[in-house]
């Protein structure tokens, strides 16, 4: 019974530490989040009576109709719109009526030769503003009210930080309580066992039972006995060799397999934000996957389709998680990455135009098939209709893109053996599928039965 005290020690330590941990964590849950929207609401209310419009309504209208080209405090495709009404009145002497007319039919005004219309048209690279004849005067009032509201900048930042400590905990509560309870129960059990054991010992001593220590010591040490048993030695040796061979094989087989490879990229591009939070379809950017062997890394002009107007990262509605913050993924960090894109593509944010000085981005390639293996994306994406995630994993959850699948030949072959060929509605397969499925006596042919395991299909 040498070992018993030892085990006890472990369980004691474990138990105690768990209890301590539990106590500490529970103490944190007393807080409750309730601060979130207060600041912003307050800010909006404060200016609500400044004009006839309703800034809340105006905000939603602004986001629907204007935000693609305008921001409040920043030049984009069109001018910054904060306090546009008062500014126009002060600087140009234009009243609200002018604004109504402009918003409802700007091309018409440019045509008619209105001086300021023409000026602003030329100032913004002759990019005509879409006419909004459907907006009522009241709608425009609402929008203008929103633009006249003081920018709610400071408040969300405070709200954000208040936010995140709360939300991070909220998901953890139930799990940790359970764990804590378990730990307590476990600790109690250990204690009981220890007590039972010592009680038994005491009883044994009291009854004069001699524990079998001496007899055990007379035995030949186990290693000697082992060494003397040649059969055992042989068997063990074989097992050892087999075991090491198994591990050696395993190790060798992972040479050149870069599963999990997640290199640092020149721009921290988050698939989680794009494909996950914003639910952008994979093939919007990787469009050549439909028609080509390459999935294609999108060229920078594709990025600029959206990032012309998305110039800063505003964070997910719940604010950055603790984990994100720990990694330094703040809103500012992401905005900085967008600036890297602007630099690469040569986009002058100030003047909203391309400078022409571009610098291609050298991404680090993650999925590297060997040159002797031919792989065609369109075969899998367009013809077979396989989801990108099947091979690339949960990309929409990847903050940093990594290689999800091993990309080994065994992995390819396994899938070809299991996957049925998608033949519905594809006339190419009509004849061959009818004949082959009859030959093999199956309803659905696998890729392998279609010839997908032949060497020459991928190696040439």
């Amino acid at each position, binding site marked *: 019974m040498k070992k018993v005290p030892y085990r006890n020690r472990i369980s004691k330590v474990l138990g105690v530490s768990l209890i301590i941990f539990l106590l500490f964590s529970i103490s944190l849950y007393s807080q409750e989040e309730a601060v979130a929207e207060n600041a912003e609401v307050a800010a909006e209310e404060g200016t609500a009576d400044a004009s006839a419009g309703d800034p809340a309504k105006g905000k939603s209208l602004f986001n629907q109709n204007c935000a693609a080209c305008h921001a409040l405090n920043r030049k984009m495709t069109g001018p910054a719109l904060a306090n546009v009404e008062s500014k126009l009145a002060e600087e140009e002497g234009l009243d609200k009526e002018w604004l109504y007319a402009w918003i409802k039919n700007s091309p018409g005004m440019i045509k008619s030769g209105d001086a300021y219309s023409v000026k602003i048209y030329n100032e913004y690279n002759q990019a005509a503003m879409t006419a909004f004849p459907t907006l009522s005067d009241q709608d425009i009032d609402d929008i203008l009210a929103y633009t006249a509201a003081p920018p709610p900048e400071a408040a969300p930042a405070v709200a954000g930080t208040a936010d995140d400590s709360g939300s991070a905990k909220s998901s953890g509560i139930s799990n940790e309580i359970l764990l804590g309870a378990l730990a307590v129960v476990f600790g109690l059990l250990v204690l009981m066992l220890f007590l039972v054991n010592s009680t038994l010992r005491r009883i044994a001593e009291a009854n004069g039972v001699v524990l079998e220590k001496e007899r055990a010591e007379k035995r030949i040490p186990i290693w000697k006995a082992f060494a003397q048993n040649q059969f055992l030695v042989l068997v063990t040796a074989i097992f050892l060799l087999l075991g090491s061979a198994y591990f050696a094989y395993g190790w060798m087989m992972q040479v050149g397999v870069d599963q999990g490879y997640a290199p640092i990229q020149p721009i921290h591009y988050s698939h989680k934000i794009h494909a996950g939070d914003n639910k952008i379809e994979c093939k919007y950017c990787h469009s050549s996957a439909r028609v080509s062997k390459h999935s294609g890394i999108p*060229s*920078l*002009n594709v990025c600029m389709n959206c990032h012309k107007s998305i110039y800063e990262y505003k964070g997910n509605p719940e604010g950055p998680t603790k984990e994100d913050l720990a990694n330094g993924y703040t809103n500012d960090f992401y905005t900085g990455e967008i600036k890297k894109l602007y630099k690469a593509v040569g986009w002058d944010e100030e003047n909203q135009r391309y400078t022409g000085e571009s610098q*291609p981005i050298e991404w680090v*390639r993650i999925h590297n098939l060997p040159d002797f293996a031919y792989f065609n994306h369109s075969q899998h994406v367009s013809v077979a209709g396989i989801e990108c995630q099947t091979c690339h994993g949960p990309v929409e959850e990847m903050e940093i893109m990594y290689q999800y699948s091993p990309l080994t030949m065994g992995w390819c072959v396994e899938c070809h053996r299991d996957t049925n060929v998608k033949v519905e509605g594809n006339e190419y397969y009509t004849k061959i599928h009818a004949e082959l499925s009859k030959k093999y006596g199956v309803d659905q042919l696998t890729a392998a039965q279609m010839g997908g395991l032949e060497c020459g299909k991928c190696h040439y």
Partner: protein
Amino acid sequence: MASNKKYWKSEAELNPNDSIVETLKQNEFVEEIPVDDFLGDRENLSATTTNRRDFLKYVGFSTAAASLAACQGPVRKSIPYVVQPENIIPGVANYYATTIANGFDFASILIKTREGRPIKVENNTEAKVGGSANARVQASVLSLYDSTRLQGPLANGEPVEWDALDAGVRAKLGSLKGSGKQIALLTQTYASPSTSRLVAEFKEMYGDVNHVTYDAISEDAALTAFENRYGERALADYDFSKADLIISFGADFLADWQGGGYDSGYSKGRIPKNGKMSRHIQFEANMSITGANADKRVPLTPMQQKVALAKLYAKLNGTSVGGEIGGAEQALDAAVAQIKNNTGNAVVVTGIDDVNAQSVVLAINEMLGSKAFDSKSPKYSRQGNTKAVNALISDMNAGKVGALIMDGVNPMYTLPNATDFASGIEKVDLSVVFSTNWNETTEVTQYTAAANHFLESWGDAHIKKGHYSLMQPTIKELFDTRQFQTALLGWMGRDISYYDYIKETWGTFVLNGNDWNKVLHDGVFVASYNMTGDPENALGQEDKETSDATTTEESASDSSVLPIASAVRSLVNATSGGGMELTLYSKIGMGDGQQANNPWLQEFPDPITRVSWDNYITVSKADAEQLGLVNEHVANGGMDGSYVKLTADGVSIDGVPVIVQPGQANGSVGLSFGYGRKVGMKSEMQTGVNAYSLYQNFNAVQSVTIEKSSEMHEFACVQLHKTLMGRGDIIKETTLEIFNTKDHAEWNVVPVVSLNHQEVPATTVDLWDSFDRSIGHHFNMSIDLNACTGCGACVIACHAENNVPVVGKQEVRLSRDMHWLRIDRYYSSEDTFEEDNTKKEEFDGLSGEKGSLGGFGELEHPATNPQVAFQPVMCQHCNHAPCETVCPVAATSHGRQGQNQMAYNRCVGTRYCANNCPYKVRRFNWFLYNNNDEFDYYMNNDLGKMVLNPDVNVRSRGVIEKCSLCIQKTQKTILDAKREGRPIKDGEFQTACSSACSNGAIVFGDVNDEESKVAELAESNRMYHLLEHVGTKPNVFYHVKVRNTNEA
């Protein structure tokens, strides 16, 4: 605790300033170990024996290095476009229609580009004229990526800016205006409406401008004869598909005769249909591929050819002339009889460089009313005027030329009187040459304007009257280069791009209201309006003026009104000039030599001699014996040949290697142009001798004397001078008569084998069980030996498509050539294969008169006038492949679609498969040919690598490779159909060779598709497989060659 004691090994170390010690601290050795010296020196390396211990060291080191390298993959970058061009999708090829018009080759072609890089030339099947790319055109895409190209303009050999060059040229041209000195333009044949217009405008601007068109290999005689007869400087066109009887006097019309491009028409008439095919009689001196394809070939020296032509004319007119042509008289009589049967279906052509001969031929064809002869819409692919060239050179020497601007020509290399030119150019105030490479001419000119490759240029061509073709760039200029026309526009102060200029020209003169964009898309345009009063008259004027100016007086007295009778008379009186008659010719691989720096073409084996990396003098066996010239095979399997010294008219070249050529007319020798270039060439490419120095008076026939020199030349010959030795079963051949009258069992004999003591056809016996191949695609390839002319376009197409490496002369000599597709050339020892067969069958016993010992030896020697057959051989993709069963690692296996597949990454290089292959089509990579400076061709530099096909693996050292039936192309076709959800139509499946073959000799397709052409061909009674008795069941099949030997 460490002590502060200083230890030292030598006194020098105590001296702090000792440089050796300093070096030793950083390196183990003071000097760099001369590893390159002993590893790079091939001769020494093969001489020294690496001992066992060294070998083990190498092995140990490389194993360790390999395992280290395997543990960590390299970081690979992936760089997308900043702004992706709309029509480029990475991984998807784009095709553009364009035109090659380099003065020697004129063809409408398609260019396959990947990610903006041109990588392959395809035929433009839309084009009715010049739509087929020959071997040189196929290879031209590699010349774009030549690492020795000029990267910017030069002045006296030093790099300058274009601005400086422009300023210099413009100032000089301005000062020459009205100075009395002429401005000369010496250019290639453009046949370009826009360039003609531009040059005319240039003339208008500068007044005394002399535009001289110069063809390196002149067709002046034919042009003059045509001009005298029809009033236009052009070449008659021939459509051989309409001819039943073709008689040629030294015209190598399946190669480059009068601009070439006649082979597809010829092949159409050669496939027996309804018991009929054309008959082709060839009178020639050198064994050309045209002669090799002829039904009857009569070796005659050039002088005799002239006499024979005169006799033909006389016999057709019922008269007779003198002159002696020996046994050829009989052949001529038979030909005349055949012509008289059906005059309209016969055509006569000649390649004799003689205005009289060319005039007589035009007269004969007109007299016969030949349907194949077309003088109404002639070809413009040769415009060169030799008299004007000579006049220009004398003007230059006389100091009458103020400026000389050259484009597309290399006169210092191609002129026989290059020294005159060199002395003349020194007296010219301003000389500019447009050139893609540093060459003999750029050396002597002041300004070298780095020119575009044609794949970077805009342009147009009027190849044949009414048939226009557009050239568009398929890639932006790789270097700081300009095309001639753009520069000329700049010098004229015109603020218009050459593209706009062409568009303007076409809009005004050519298109006649047709849509420019559509024409640009198609690449070709056929004018449908009435040709009288057409733009050519306006456009062609400037050319005509020059030729008129220089030739009027002479030609008036010389030949223009020369009646045909006197032409015939002068032909009869032709004399040889005493010595051997040398006929200079252009090789299919090298042409006029402008692409001499192209390794694909250098390694391309000549169809007849099968020699690569060389030109040589061809000598008949009788003459060789007389002169003591030999070809011998040496121990390592290579062939050596004697050297001779050739002297013609005081000019001599030494060190010309000799090939004893079966079929060469006695008393004649042949030598090809295009070799012997030295300046600006990589050392590996400096091959052969320059035949242009013997091209006196631009006459391809010269009288020469031959002296034997010492030493032997080492040839790189891929197939030695062996004949079929009566083994007709690799090539099956019959005559039209037998083909029409006898059952196919007689002329397409299926070999029999013994099974259960009974003779059964070999095709019915199997060692293996057959797979069911009736489902899905099953690819077959058909090769018609009748339609194949041996032109070799497929060989280069295969090279380009499949990233086949170039191995160089040394390696080819060691039989390590890598061509996946070879065109075997077989001679039959007797005049016909039948005679060979009979002789073999009559062997009786070992020795004696009919003994096989002597008999076989005799059969090995091709006769003086052998019959020739070409046979393209690639992997036969046997259904019962011997290679597959012997591979110890299952690297080669069979696909359900019929391909014999080769997984390079699995191959360990035992070469069992190559040894077990009955067709010898498997190639072994003895070295790493890419990224290896020992093989300095194109795969070792970034520029050259741009031509590689990204869909095909670049093989490494130590693996076997071979034809894959272009599985990358069939897979793409299948994928496209799958994506579009449709069945595949016949004709969509193509291989590189089948799509390159404009002769229709190679047909590829799915034999399970009953509608397909290949399925129909597989059922033909001419179909046979190579070596049927081996039982390999190949998926490539051949069609029995039929020769039309009907004498009557």
